[in-house]
């Protein structure tokens, strides 16, 4: 991998995207199809207009071939994002978004934006959300110590962003503190 050393500890964005592809999403097929057999499992049969639950990667593939419409997940609505953003700005905790929210929304907006109502607004809110959360995560890192760092509802992509710095810094601090505590706690024998 041609990544700088410090980043090798983390996933690449495309790896994360791949992981997020396994998330389930609901589609409305527009073509009837028999059962589709894949290594990871079989899906279908599809019978429009019956909704079907498929992994995101399959949904996007079908979408590319105009064989389905993707039902936008409930959290990916302007109302919900607005609320989340509001919470994000007022509450200290991170608001509960899906673990792969960034990847899923990115992929959906990229290849199925017409299936997402008010996609432009959604995009804007997502951007705001991301920025607020990023600055929050940075602020959270400021209180880093050698024991633990608790940040609930952080998504994979966000964890990944702070991972190189965090893991290194954490290890360093532990090392320093270990010496300290060793010094203190060494029994006088």
């Amino acid at each position, binding site marked *: 991998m041609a990544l700088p050393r410090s980043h090798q500890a983390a996933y690449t964005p495309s790896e994360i995207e791949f992981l997020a592809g396994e998330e389930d999403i609901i589609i*409305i*097929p*527009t*073509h*009837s199809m*028999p059962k589709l057999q894949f290594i990871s499992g079989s899906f279908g*049969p599809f*019978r*429009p*207009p*019956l*909704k079907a639950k498929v992994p995101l990667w399959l949904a996007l593939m079908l979408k590319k071939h*105009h064989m389905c*419409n993707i*039902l936008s997940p409930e959290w990916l609505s302007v109302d919900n994002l607005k609320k989340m953003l509001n919470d994000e700005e007022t509450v200290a905790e991170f608001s509960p978004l899906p673990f792969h929210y960034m990847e899923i929304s990115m992929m959906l907006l990229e290849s199925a934006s017409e299936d997402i109502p008010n996609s432009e607004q959604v995009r804007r809110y997502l951007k705001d959300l991301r920025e607020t959360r990023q600055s929050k995560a940075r602020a959270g890192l400021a209180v880093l110590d050698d024991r633990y760092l608790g940040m609930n509802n952080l998504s994979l992509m966000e964890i990944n962003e702070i991972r190189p710095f965090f893991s290194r810094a954490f290890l360093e601090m532990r090392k320093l503190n270990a010496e300290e505590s060793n010094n203190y706690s060494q029994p006088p024998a």
Partner: protein
Amino acid sequence: MTINVLRKEAHSEGFTTVAYKTDGTAIITGGQDSKLHVYNTLRSQRNTEPKILDEHTEPVCAIATHRANFATAGEDGTVLIFRNSTNDFEKFLVRSTTPIRSLSFNNNGTRIAVATDENVIRIILVRDISKVVTLSGHTTLVKSVAFSPTSDHMISTDIGGDIKIWDMNHSSGAPQCVKTLPGAVRKCASDADVMNTIAWSPDGAYFCFAGKEHEICVYSTKDWTQKYALEFAHFNDIITMAWSPNGSYIASVGKDRTVVIWDTTNQSDVVKYENTDAISGVAWHPQENELALTDLKGQLLMWYDPINISTMGHPAKKATQEVDDLEHLFEESSTQQASLSNNGGSTRQESLLDNVAQDHDIEEDEEGEELDDEGEDVDMASDMGDFVIDDDGAGYAEEQQQPQRQTTIRNGITGRAIGPQHKITEQATFQPGSTTFRTMDTAVQPPTPLEGERRYMAFNMFGIIYTIYQGAHSIVNVEFHDQAHNRNFHFTDYYHYTMASIGPDGAVFAVEGGKRRKKEEKSNDDEDSREPAGVTPSVIHYRPLMNWANNLEWTIDLPEGENVKSITINESAVIAVTSAGYVRMFTISGLQNHIFRLENIVATAAHGNLVLLVYKNGGTGLNGEQNLEFMLMDTTTQDIIQRGNLPLQKSSHLTWIGFSETSVRQKLKNLLDVFQALMYDSNYVLSILHRQRSFGQSYWIPVFDGKLTAKTLERQERYWPVGMLRDRLMCLIVRGTNDAPYFPRPPVDDIELHMPVINLDTEAGQLEEAHMRMRLISNHDRTEAIATNQQDEYYDVLKEADADMDKTLLRLIQIACRTDKEQRILDLAAALHSSRSVDAAVKVATHFKLSNVAEKLVQIKEEKFMMHDEMLSLSKRSMELDLDDESISSKRIRY
């Protein structure tokens, strides 16, 4: 009995308000056309034209009445006082720069509270308009005000949702806010239709308002706390409400277009009426069993006898005022005395007007109270009322002709047990899967939709047809769920087709005749412009979906005077029902191949080679039966497969019919479809025609209860069916006021069917339901297999279904073992489909140490499975087992 509603076009479309004069002689309405209408309420004069007062310059928003005069206010910011007796304009009370939203007289009519679009409430002395007290305290614009009918309290609401209770006679001298209920009502816009009305009970002991969740909160004035809530009847915001004059009922109206009358003694809804539009004004007649409503279309509805007084208490009379009553009797028995009594009343009222001083009024009040007491005494003593009622059987029509008698009857009756309430809605003809235009332009006759308005003409499992009205023409869009074979298309429609149906081979459109068409509307691309002079004929037009040959399209004009009433299409035929009482069948190519007579058809639906016709057998019964029958026909052989009664609960009606569709995958060939007739009624119950192939053996089985489902999901929603797959209802979920879907097209949802069995909340109940449902489906598959000679194709499906059922049965056996219900274990085991399953059951029984049961199970196994020879085919075997199965189910009912 029928619902006795008299409609009158009163105002232009928009918010309207209504009030009765306190003596009940007239209804005053106000609306968007800035006019006030005064209707005489005498039944003999109910068709006379109203008196129109046009003193207002902007829409009228509020009307308040008191003995001598009535006050009206509107968006022009003025409050006007009129004289009750002559309806003459008397004086300006207030001129404000902002619209006025609400008005209220205090209990003796000396003061009036005014809510304008400001944060303050103004209290004005009626006699001297220079004496104004302003109450400040609200932080947002005041929406409504209401004086207590008995005490010196006043309640106001604002658009931020706060309620404030004011004591107007506070010890400190100035009016004081004694309590605030923050956020008790919904936030709304200052000009919203929702009025946030505070309604006082006539005795001043309670007040009520619309809460946040479409419920009515009733508060006590003793400690200003909530006593109870009236809920689960409105599906959308409540606009306003009113207590009946004796406080035993509350009538509320909501955006869901319904009027609900609640009984306050047992806190339940007793009468419901659904109007065509949302109602924004409601008022009870001060003495009679009568309700006045005004809707957003500007109509006044006078609802006579909303309460069935033969079974329930009268809404106005409890402590009747003897004198008023006698006056009233006199009034109604002769036609002339209206003016007389008015004169009589006005002398008294005028004296009041001249002398509005409070003390005088108090005297008047006391007088009234005395009368009240007397009235009660009389009431208690009168046994005559009961006698009369038994005598005449409480015929409503009769009562109206004999008002004297009616009033006597009412006097005698106070609270009685509540009997069944039926309202009659006659079954209308409908096209399954179609909706209506939402907004119509009523200015032209006949009403036409606004330009750009759209509606669904057909919505089924195959596709959607919707039309967009464009004035001179319409755009018809045809869309498919499955776009593998068909492309969506649209075309310009110069006929304004009113009905359509879509099937796998084509779409068919039809329009009634009789409309005069203009020459220039004819288009060039419309090839069939052979229109005779005068009226247009009724047209049926077929469009193929597959273009393997030329000229597959066809158009047929019906003979003059014959109109298409309903149309449907399946794989082999186009079926048109006409006003001549004919059912005309065409082949897909337009060949006429059958015609027969069937009158009063309500709806038709077709699928595969079947057609379901629902027709009225006689009119709507007096107690609400619809008397519908159905006929299931094979369109290729023209055989009647099934006919019988359509089970509909009283006072409900049919809203949809269609076919379920089960795709059964065959081993080698393509899909095999089986269809089963379905019905859906206004109680949101979906029923399926079981055993449709065996003549005389069919019955309707309820497989889905929409109300129950919505309740268990804790959602306020309704289901608009589209079709049914094997075990799922395909529907559109409709929320809010609408009972039909609109645009943009919502996605089709699928909901699991649940037969309305008992104990659905327990695991055993759920399993029982699942087994029952699976058995039903597989029975149907089996009969269908035999009817179509395709047992081999069904073999796999049936086997799979049997295995599924056995799984459920085994789980039930396990539950039964756990609870030591031994007989039940045997019942369940007898329904198992294979010896292997029985073996499993034996294992379960031994695990629970029920050795005697295990022994019996082995016996069952021997009886059922060992005796069969190997040569018996599996499918045949399961057939017989199914018979066993049924005998067992009858046995099980005993438990």
